[in-house]
């Protein structure tokens, strides 16, 4: 394709000035966006006596990281978090891809009812159901178990993702599926072999976002776990005590938790952009 002569911003400026201005603006935006996290990283490297007055003094140390890593729970927490995030992502997508497909391809009372249901439950605030959720998981013997943490994390995405998935499938021409069915494919065959592969970019995009969301999720983890399934956010939250905050340890743990998230975002983003086309 021939390079299109794109319309330019600030056309009265000479190209070099425009370029400099553009670069400066982009650099500023990037700095502003990254600043809280850069500051967090800087904080985590300061000795405990300097974690609040980060700008005062130039001593840096890895002591907070060493202290966090000396806690034997931390490795387990990272593994638990990675496991829960990955499983939650896989299962969330599995159940919502079919639910979104149904919403997109079928009209009728069942479809309208299901869409109404997910819309209504999308609107209910978390505050009203985390405590009852605690009672529920407890009476079903799921409190402080992997299952008891995993299933709510899957359930929480159902409404949002079904909605997005419907959008993805709406953007895919159904005639391919009809053609496949005329060729002797079952409905399931048409769904799994034809529709899902064409929605795959969108699905992988959601996978990245879902993984990041679960990785960083606090409230469910705090309410639904005790000591058997420590996840990384719960370990972080335990640095908040009645006697104040262990901010240096919290910052160090948060920075360590940043790394997997960064890798996922780095390698996942091209799928995200390619896929998130509603």
């Amino acid at each position, binding site marked *: 394709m021939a390079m299109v002569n794109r319309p330019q911003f600030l056309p009265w400026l000479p190209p070099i000035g425009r370029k400099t201005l553009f670069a400066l603006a982009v650099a500023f935006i990037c700095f502003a966006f990254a600043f809280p996290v850069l500051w967090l990283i800087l904080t985590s490297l300061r000795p405990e006596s300097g974690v609040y007055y980060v700008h005062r003094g130039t001593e840096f140390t890895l002591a907070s990281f060493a202290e966090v890593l000396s806690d034997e729970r931390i490795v387990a927490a990272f593994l638990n978090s990675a496991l829960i995030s990955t499983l939650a992502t896989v299962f969330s997508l599995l159940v919502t891809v079919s639910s979104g497909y149904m919403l997109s391809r079928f009209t009728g009372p069942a479809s309208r009812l299901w869409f109404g249901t997910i819309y209504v439950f999308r609107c209910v605030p978390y505050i009203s159901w985390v405590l009852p959720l605690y*009672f529920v998981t407890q009476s079903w013997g799921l409190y402080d178990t992997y299952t008891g943490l995993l299933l709510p994390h899957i359930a929480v995405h159902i409404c949002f993702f079904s909605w997005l998935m419907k959008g993805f499938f709406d953007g895919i021409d159904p005639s391919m599926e009809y053609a496949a069915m005329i060729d002797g494919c079952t409905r399931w065959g048409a769904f799994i072999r034809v529709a899902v592969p064409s929605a795959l970019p969108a699905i992988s995009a959601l996978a990245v976002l879902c993984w990041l969301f679960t990785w960083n999720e606090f409230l469910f983890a705090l309410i639904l776990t005790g000591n058997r399934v420590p996840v990384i956010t719960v370990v972080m939250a*335990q640095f908040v005590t009645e006697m104040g905050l262990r901010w240096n340890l919290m910052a160090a743990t948060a920075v360590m938790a940043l790394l997997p998230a960064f890798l996922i975002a780095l390698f996942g983003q091209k799928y995200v952009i390619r896929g998130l086309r509603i």
Partner: protein
Amino acid sequence: MQGLARWFVAATAALVAATGSAAAQVKELRIGYQPSPIQDASIAMFEAWGAKNGVKIVKVPNSYGVYVEKMTASLTSNSDQYDVIWHNDDWGQTWAHLLEPTDDVEANKFGSKWSMSPIVFANAQGQNTVVPMGQTFSVFFYRSDLVKPEEVPKTLDELVTMSKKLQADGKVKFGYVGGMSMNHSWFSWFWSMWANNCDVLLPAYERDNKKLAEAGWKSSLTDPCMQKTVEYWWDAINTHKISPRGMPAYDRNEANAIFMAGDAAFTVADTLWWGTFNDPNKSKIVGKVAAARFPLGPDRKKPFGWDDIWGWAIPKSIPEERKKLAKQMLNAMMLDEEGQTKLFKSTGAPPPNTTFWPKIAEQDAFMKLLKEAVLDSPDKVRGAYYFPQWPAVHKAFNDAVTKAVTGKREDIAKVLAENAPLVSKAAQ
């Protein structure tokens, strides 16, 4: 028959002894707590006892952010998650009916009578429901390198003049810094109002719910004493500038960070912070801190101390034999002199057994001061109120005074009067 039974018991005992403590090892106690130096030190005593008696101590840390709500939910749903839980005077009456009475923990008699008063921890039948962990209260800290003991402010006015002098001399950026936002009211609002014969509800210092109800859960916000307290902080922040302008939004972390950075001369914090203030890894003012009695307002002449405890409790819903075992453990903790001395050393919190106090005070100047100024003081104040609506009352109070102190000075009385009914309403 009886002989046979006795023989059987003896044989079993011998067998257990012979196989080591294999059977006993199965026993375990689950502790629901929050990681912090004082609880860690107390649990260290549990673990020492557990090692000796073949009981495994399982520690289940909980975040402060959801501790009360989650533990309350756990207690009311009769779950079997914990055998011993962290307990605090603030929710003494909220949980009393859900906890096992602890009157039969014999060593409880060595606990502080004041702190374990039935007003705080007794259930409807008048039975005590707590075993103390340590005394937790705040004192007035000052920078001993800047202020001589005889110069320490005795009144709120002296706090202003002394602060101004230190600031004018360029010694510190601010005179006083202390937490003020919700759930940190103690570190500025509460102590300063107690210092002036004032309180959240009137009559001041009254904690008997019957008497408070008779008084109609009367809020102090319409009383001149509270207006004076708010005006004092308004002036401290805006007129005298001895406290930072952001202080009404500070929690204890922010206030202590400023104090530990050496930017303020005075603060009020829990004695538990004594260890932190003097830890070179955490603080820039190591060895430059001392404690004193609270400065007093114009309407109060007699010094006072604030004294509360943290404790341990046993959920009512757990099986009898575990209750018994938990009580044995708590009893042993109460008698563990070595462990309790360590608890004081690592935290600055007076340990639960009062009979150990004199000996620690002989060796430690800080404990000596706490003993004289607070523990042995006849004029004591309780930090919280002991009815289930207290968190709602506290929030209504804090919202009102925060609104008043961040507004215009001439509006203070008006704002307080507007909010007074909300405090009384929250109590009912």
